[in-house]
């Protein structure tokens, strides 16, 4: 039976060189990230090259994704949040493409099932919030941790709890995406493996294999939904965190 974890293995494609004893290699993970970037660029640049008044299919797709992200930012961070539009849009499209590329059977690789990738994205958001918040509000950014209208004697406790809740953000932000993609793909692989195992048993096995096969089909549909939804959740949480950088006062 195929190993359900094997699909997450990172393999070296080409060694670029060594830096301080560490090998720098072009891996399948990097390849899929590259494919995602090229795909997004082709979609956005190609679709907008013609810029017709009545949009064609590709242009409609590009306009829809623009409107989707712009609406998301407006509803969570307000119109001021639109200055972060390029950032949020890049993150949303990147995660969405990576998740969707992982759904391709036979040779698809899910980059977002590695926590190192999702953690890097989450930390990028985390530090963007801190840097932009301090740049625009200075010391007033610290009011994020001290809600107004709290009695002085419990303020230290509240500040501790707020700081904890702030620091836990990049963790929940990255673990959510990574865990959902990892668990979903393992489930898919395990049930697909059942079909193969039962099918090897003969006619009785074929009848028994119908159930896991149906389940595999259903889980595939669910995984497509999750792949989109997790990209959406990642982007909307980015907006919510950026909202704190824009409006730190309580």
């Amino acid at each position, binding site marked *: 039976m195929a190993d359900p974890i094997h699909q997450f293995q990172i393999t070296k494609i080409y060694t670029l060189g060594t830096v301080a004893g560490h090998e720098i290699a072009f891996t399948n993970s990097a390849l899929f990230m590259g494919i995602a970037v090229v795909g997004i660029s082709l979609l956005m640049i190609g679709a*907008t090259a013609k*810029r*017709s*008044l009545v*949009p064609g299919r590709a*242009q409609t797709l*590009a*306009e*829809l994704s*623009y*409107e*989707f992200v*712009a*609406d998301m930012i407006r509803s969570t961070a307000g119109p001021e949040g*639109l200055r972060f*539009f390029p950032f949020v849009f890049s993150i949303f499209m990147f995660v969405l493409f990576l998740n969707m590329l992982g759904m391709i059977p036979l040779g698809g690789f899910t980059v977002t099932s590695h926590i190192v990738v999702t953690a890097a994205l989450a930390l990028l958001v985390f530090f963007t919030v801190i840097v932009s918040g301090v740049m625009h509000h200075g010391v007033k950014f610290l009011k994020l941790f001290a*809600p*107004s209208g709290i009695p002085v004697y419990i303020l230290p406790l509240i500040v*501790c*709890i*707020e*700081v*904890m*809740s702030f*620091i*836990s*953000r990049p*963790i*929940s*932000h990255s*673990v*959510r995406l990574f*865990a*959902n993609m990892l668990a979903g793909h393992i489930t898919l692989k395990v049930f697909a493996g059942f079909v193969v195992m039962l099918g090897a048993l003969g006619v009785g096995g074929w009848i028994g294999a119908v159930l896991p096969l149906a389940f595999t089909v259903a889980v595939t549909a669910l995984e497509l939904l999750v792949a*989109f*939804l*997790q990209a*959406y*959740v990642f982007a*909307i*949480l980015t907006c919510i965190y950026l*909202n*704190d950088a824009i*409006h730190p*006062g*309580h």
Partner: protein
Amino acid sequence: MRGFLTRYTLASMVRAAFRDGENVSVFSGFAGVEGMADGARKRGERNGTPADEAALSARLRRLGERLDRARAGRAAKNGPGAGSVSDVSGLARGLRLSAELVGGVIVGAGIGLGFDYLLGTSPWGFIVLVMLGFAGGVLTVMRSAGVIPERRL
């Protein structure tokens, strides 16, 4: 998709259509809404008289108002919770809750262990900070579930 044609893109389309017919850039919206509107205004000043410009902007405003009314009517007809976007955001909200509690506890445990390691106060830093982390996690979950008001802006 809710609000597919925003007033901004529509305005640019109308302006552009008035300007030179066919070969227009609807999609310059990507460059940023404000910058685009400024550009359109500048072009308008160059090409048309102020009276034309005023008439055009009045028409645009009327069109925008009608669009807003139509959109409000559609939203009222569909009601809250209808349509794919709000379904998605409900699901997304549910999914968000799963990891947030765990995140708080993990951070508390990590900081507590580090604290103990550096200061040799084991196990007190761990105990206190795990509890604080748990409180922080509960706070995040309650905030994202909307049990307590998000932020008083």
